[in-house]
């Protein structure tokens, strides 16, 4: 009765036109899916590849190796090698000593570059170089009066030239360098006087002013980030676990707990910048804590991370089967004992994983830190704990942002380098989390 008279019992071995069209649609649909995944994968690869290629340069640095005559009459006028006396000699003076050393070296090598000016020769070395020479001399006063071989930082443009960032063409249009200077640098490199080495200082030093990208490092930012993670670890983890235990194991099911639960899931989705506003209003303006301090950053990140720790922790507690609780209660343990002696240890791997991932998220967070003054230019590495918590500090992601705001393109290399450092930390944390999950994964 519902049979369609037009429809003959067709052979299964031949596809009718409609089935062919439907199969074509099926294939198209499948390709959309593959396309979507391919786009995501390509985006991931391009993203990582650009950051890695841009940032790799930050880990190499060119140095000019020259003998510097440390004239005692200039650097230690009193002649008694007293560090306090010598500290009165300004960096500027060392700059002149260094300029002379560079000039002499170029003259000695008899390099012929047409139209080479004194500015070109002086500009070979970084403005930071004189301070580095001075620091070394103050640390080792006995060097004064001798001629010592120094590896001094080259200028940002020279560094860029050897990394391929600066070319003869771009130098033509650049007021900070010139093709002549690059030719000179090339000649020095041919003679083995300019060398490129792994840049440990990038990981050790603090930020440098916007005129000297070659001297900027992420050392202070790493310390700042580390201090903040410490605060988050000490505050967010115990509080988060305690809150999860209460909500999952003890809280009565009533309106009040309901509100707390909805509140936590909403708090996890509040934009991070709102936590920055909270930190500014509550911790800096109201409580009067210092700006740019890791303690404030840590507190803000703690509040932000709490819900992100509570949610996986509760899931881990929930995954422990009720039979374990019943077994403990059945032998006369109190509710509290059953939770702390049995449930919590069994949930530990899940809790640890959630905790590490929460910390990783906090480590990469930028926006709230901008508002509590961490964008400030930080020249010094914060002191040791606990007073270092109140020193002005930067953080890795904020340092990246800071460097993107500077005009010299050399800072883009530094920013990408800082991101590589950040990603390495995140990678380690995630690998640890995955390892924990794999190692202790338990199926009930």
């Amino acid at each position: 009765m519902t049979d369609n008279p037009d429809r003959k019992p067709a052979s299964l071995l031949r596809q009718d036109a409609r089935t062919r069209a439907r199969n074509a649609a099926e294939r198209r649909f499948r390709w959309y899916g593959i396309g979507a995944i391919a786009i995501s994968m390509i985006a991931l690869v391009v993203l990582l590849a650009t950051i890695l290629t841009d940032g790799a340069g930050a880990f190499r640095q060119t140095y000019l190796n020259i003998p510097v005559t440390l004239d005692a009459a200039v650097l230690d006028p009193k002649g008694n090698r007293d560090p306090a006396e010598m500290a009165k000699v300004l960096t500027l003076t060392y700059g002149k000593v260094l300029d002379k050393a560079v000039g002499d070296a170029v003259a000695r090598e008899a390099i012929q570059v047409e139209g080479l000016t004194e500015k070109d020769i002086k500009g070979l070395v970084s403005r930071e170089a004189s301070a580095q020479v001075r620091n070394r001399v103050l640390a080792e006063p006995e060097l004064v009066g001798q001629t010592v071989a120094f590896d001094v930082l080259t200028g940002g443009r020279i560094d860029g030239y050897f990394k391929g960032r600066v070319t003869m063409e771009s130098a033509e249009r650049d007021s900070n360098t010139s093709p002549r200077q690059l030719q000179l640098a090339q000649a020095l490199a041919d003679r083995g006087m300019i060398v490129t080495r792994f840049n440990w200082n990038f990981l050790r030093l603090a930020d440098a002013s916007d005129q000297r990208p070659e001297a900027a490092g992420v050392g202070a930012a790493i310390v700042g980030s580390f201090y903040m993670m410490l605060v988050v670890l000490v505050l967010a983890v115990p509080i988060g676990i305690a809150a999860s235990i209460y909500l999952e194991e003890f809280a009565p099911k009533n309106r009040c707990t309901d509100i707390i639960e909805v509140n936590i899931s909403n708090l996890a989705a509040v934009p991070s910048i709102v936590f920055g506003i909270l930190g500014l209003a509550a911790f800096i303006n109201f409580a009067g804590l210092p700006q740019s301090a890791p303690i404030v950053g840590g507190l803000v990140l703690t509040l932000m991370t709490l819900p992100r720790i509570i949610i996986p922790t509760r899931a881990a507690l929930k995954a422990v089967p009720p039979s374990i609780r019943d077994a403990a209660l059945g032998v006369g343990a109190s509710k509290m004992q059953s939770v702390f002696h049995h449930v919590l240890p069994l949930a530990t791997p899940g809790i640890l994983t959630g905790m590490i991932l929460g910390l990783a998220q906090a480590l990469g967070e930028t926006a709230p830190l901008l508002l509590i003054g961490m964008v400030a230019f930080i020249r010094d590495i914060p002191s040791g704990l606990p007073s270092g918590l109140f020193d002005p500090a930067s953080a890795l992601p904020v340092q990246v942002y800071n460097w993107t705001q500077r005009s010299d393109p050399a800072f883009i290399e530094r920013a990408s380098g800082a991101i590589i450092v950040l990603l390495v930390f995140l990678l380690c944390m995630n690998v640890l989390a995955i390892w924990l999950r794999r190692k202790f994964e338990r199926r009930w």
Partner: protein
Amino acid sequence: MPLSWAILATFLLAAAGYIVGRSRAFASAGPDARQLHSRPTYHGASVALTALLPPLAVLAAGSMLRLAGVLTVGAMPVIGILALVAAIAGLGIGVTRIGQGYQARNAVERMVLGLLMLCSLIAIVTTLGIILSLVFETGRFFQLYDWKTFFFGTEWTPRFQGNSQLGIVPLLWGTLYVSAIALLVAVPIGLFAAVYMSEYASRRVRGVVKPAIEVLAGIPTIVYGLFALITVGPLLRDYFAQPLGLGNSGTSVLTAGLVMGIMLIPFVSSLSDDIINAVPQSLRDGALGLGSTPSETVRQVVLPAALPGIVGAVLLAASRAIGETMIVVLGAGAAAQMSLNPLEAMTTITVKIVSQLTGDSDFNSPETLVAFALGLTLFVITLALNVVALIIVRKYREQYE
């Protein structure tokens, strides 16, 4: 630092209390420790806690009063002494309570339960703190600046000498424009990726692709921001905007939108993946058993069944996009304007919050305080989206449970 000394002394007293309590418990039990109601360690812990909690409460209250301006710095040593007195009193009470019949375990558990409860309240306190700080400062802003001009003004030109135009409309436009582009990128890609992974991909493909997409989710937004700034922005400028004569800005709505879309792909796909997997297999079998192809099954049965959940996921993604900061700060630009051209630089609410609150800010000028009004607007919009999304998703899950 008298307070840190007080804290240290309190902890020392508590430690001493633990040892004393434990040994007294043993002593009161006589030769047989089974005579005690609770294990001796509980007696120790109960003494330690009674010695620890009152002074900590005193210190916390003192600090709060100090922050609120009721007490001066000079009063802090007094607080420290009060705390010590409380500690000694607590210790004394704790020690005298010890005896065979004392239910130390119950006492300790009550105190621990109280602590746990206190911790779970911190989430509420945080929310209250956010609301209070936003509302309070926004109130001050509206005393200095007309609220109608803020909400309906189409011009954003803050000036430090005063007489600024602070209309939110152009910022809202930029925010919504960037978010819309981001969702246009993320929703189809994320959804198709999720469908492919849950309906077609072999286990091996899943095992490779799923973690890779999760990596995309674990990358901090500052990295996406830098990517927008140094790669995507110049690319769009050199190959689209300039040849087409649509502008020559390295930052643009499209730059920020595309990159934010990439950032949201894993978010959309993992939420959709969960939701699609919640659709019972029996529905798929039903459709396949009637002779529909897998794609027909997905489009006509699985996706309609999952629709509420997917709508919820899209709303959550939208809320993320609206609240995202670093990508737009680095990718979208700072020019507050309302234009349809996606290759022009525009700005968003979050960008302006950052620019008004960084640098030297005077917390009595409307130019600074406007950031709090912007923050409150942002908070309300995202909260509304989240609440609606969570309700939808929860309803959806209940349907299949």
